[in-house]
């Protein structure tokens, strides 16, 4: 009877009980994993970790925010490029109870996301929509990875950088405003504006010949003016900087110096030469791309360029005006070079269309400063103003998609870093993209491939031979 119970109906009851316990253990584990961060990141780049900067920021984040993912849970867990994104998103939700993650399957709800669509934008699968009611932002996978389209290679993972930046955008009622000065034939630089918008800066054009610089201006950006600034315009600039304003001026290397603007820049301890800097085409600083022949600038070690240097990045230019640092003559300014030309560069006087590009014996020899930042005390106690001057507008007038995404050059990054430093947002640069090391095997020649295949296939053959020998021995034993 006892055995009948033990191995009969009772056995089924015990098995059912055991199954129930196992299911409970799994449910409990699942809850623990959802609540606490107990996963171990085994990746070399620590893809699934977030920085202390973000952790600190999340401690004070108090806006109820829902992050929608436009893909089913199954799609998220089976798409290798979304797995790290989801892991990072889950970390945000675990660290802050105001942040909630929701998955939306677009197959079930195709119209979802229509309220988030901006002009020229579509909500695609694997989009991440950060919605805090009044303010929201849509991020696509392209926003979360650094991609070098020329080499068809993903070079970095920047989900944390983008997400923290987006939450900061949501947190700030008003964002820093950059006015793009017009009225002197300046270049529109839509790419630069979009780049700043993506980094939560507001941008607007301002005709300084007609208007004063508004109170809400944090930074002014002057890109390739072809007519000189009037005395009145310069007075407006002086007033703006005296109140603690900041600015960036990007000149056109293939244009005569503008006397008033050049004199204004000189007041900042930076002298703009009326010349053109060329790199020696025979030397290694020349980069040949579909864009044109570009030259790699030498990136100086500064707080603005720190992350670019750390990532072994590149900043390129066609030609440039050279700059002289004359800060020692103007003790009120502190000037730091940001970019220089190489030792093989040479400079020629700018003669318009008659400017020769071939090296000659009377050329000035490089290196030359191509970009510099100058800082001086403003009239507002305890504050300072900064001005970045660059001798070549190409740094930011090219298409960011070509310059940054296709070729991986950091021209826009240095521009943005300058803006971030001027507005005291250095933390933004503290969260870097996680540089993904090359995933490619190198130098596997066809003959290597052949040897590798043969040696791999030899192993099972040897095992089978051993097996046959053992089998024959035992058979004959």
């Amino acid at each position, binding site marked *: 009877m006892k055995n009948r119970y033990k191995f009969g109906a009772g*056995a089924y009851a015990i098995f059912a009980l055991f199954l129930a316990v196992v299911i409970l253990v799994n449910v409990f584990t699942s809850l623990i994993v959802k609540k606490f961060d107990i996963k171990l990141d085994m*990746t070399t780049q620590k893809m699934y970790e977030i920085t202390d900067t973000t952790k600190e920021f999340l401690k004070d984040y108090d806006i109820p925010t829902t992050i929608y993912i436009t893909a089913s849970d199954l799609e998220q867990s089976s798409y290798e490029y979304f797995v790290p994104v989801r892991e990072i998103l889950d970390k945000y939700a675990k660290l802050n109870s105001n942040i909630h993650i929701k998955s939306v399957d677009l197959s079930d709800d195709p119209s979802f996301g229509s309220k988030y669509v901006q002009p020229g934008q579509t909500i695609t699968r694997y989009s991440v929509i950060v919605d805090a009611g009044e303010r929201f932002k849509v991020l696509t996978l392209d926003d979360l990875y650094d991609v070098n389209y020329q080499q068809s290679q993903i070079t970095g993972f920047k989900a944390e950088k983008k997400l923290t930046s987006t939450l900061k955008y949501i947190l700030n009622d008003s964002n820093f405003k950059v006015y793009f000065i017009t009225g002197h034939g300046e270049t529109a630089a839509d790419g630069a504006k979009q780049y700043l918008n993506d980094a939560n800066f507001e941008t607007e054009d301002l005709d300084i010949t007609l208007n004063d610089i508004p109170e809400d201006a944090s930074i002014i950006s002057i890109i390739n003016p072809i007519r000189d600034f009037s005395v009145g315009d310069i007075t407006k600039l002086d007033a703006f900087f005296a109140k603690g304003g900041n600015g960036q001026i990007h000149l056109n290397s293939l244009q005569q110096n503008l006397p008033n603007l050049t004199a204004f820049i000189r007041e900042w301890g930076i002298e703009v030469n009326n010349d053109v800097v060329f790199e020696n085409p025979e030397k290694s600083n020349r980069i040949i791309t579909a864009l044109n022949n570009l030259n790699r600038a030498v990136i100086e070690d500064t707080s603005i360029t720190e992350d670019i240097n750390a990532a072994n990045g590149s900043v390129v230019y066609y030609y440039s005006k050279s700059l002289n640092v004359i800060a020692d003559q103007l003790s009120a300014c502190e000037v730091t070079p940001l970019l220089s030309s190489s030792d093989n560069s040479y400079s020629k006087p700018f003669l318009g269309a008659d400017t020769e590009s071939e090296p000659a014996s009377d050329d000035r020899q490089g290196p030359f400063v191509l970009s510099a930042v100058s800082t001086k005390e403003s009239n507002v106690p305890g504050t300072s103003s900064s001005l970045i001057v660059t001798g070549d507008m190409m740094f930011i007038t090219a298409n960011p998609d070509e310059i940054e995404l296709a070729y991986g050059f950091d021209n826009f990054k240095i521009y943005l870093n300058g803006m971030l430093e001027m507005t005291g947002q250095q933390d933004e640069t503290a969260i870097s993209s996680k540089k993904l090391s090359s995933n490619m095997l190198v130098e596997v020649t066809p003959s290597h491939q052949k040897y590798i295949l043969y040696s791999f296939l030899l192993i099972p053959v040897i095992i089978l031979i051993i097996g046959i020998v053992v089998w024959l021995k035992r058979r004959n034993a």
Partner: protein
Amino acid sequence: MKAIFKRELNAYFNSMLGYIFLALFLVISAVLFFTYNILNGEMNMNMFFQSILTFSLFVIPIITMRLFAEERHQKTDQLLLTSPVSVTSIVLGKFFAAMGVISIALLITAIFPFVESFYGKLSIAEIISAYIGFLFFAGSIVSIGCFMSSLTDSQIIAAITTYGVILVMLFLGFMVGNTITNDIAVKILDYLIPLNKFSDFAYGILNIEPIVYYLSVMAVLLFATVSKIESRRWR
């Protein structure tokens, strides 16, 4: 349990079965690794592990089919069941022996990342994570095979039923997200398919959730195997 483990492991390599399994596993994994990694110049072994996982579903039953079915067919199970060893020890001994054969196969495949290391920088921790995941996954499939083998005295039927369970799992896996879209059904089915729990390991995440899941699958099926064999004692 140790004695059973040794006896079973020797049995694999005293017959051709262990060698055939190793050779088959290594040929398939070599071809997959060569295709995905060497020919494509790809350093990341993620695709290799995902593929070998699917192929292993079809080779693991080769070593599990004989575990109990053969004993029963040759009537040696009577001897085993009357020996002073608990049924749990017998089941665990056989289970770990099968896992031992799979571990030997995996150990030999370590030559693949070793070769890769000559051609680039290897992420060793990620690869170890994938190997750990594979062992847990294999454990769950071996436990399915164990249970199926305990139900019959025919190795062929044991293999066919194990393949049947695996094919149903694969079929359901295909249906989930394609034909079956109901949220609850998707979640339940997704949970029942061991294949779907491997992705964390492949992506370099050591997560306790799939580990507990795989251990649970093993525990339930080995418990069921023990119960099945115990039930024969009193019949």
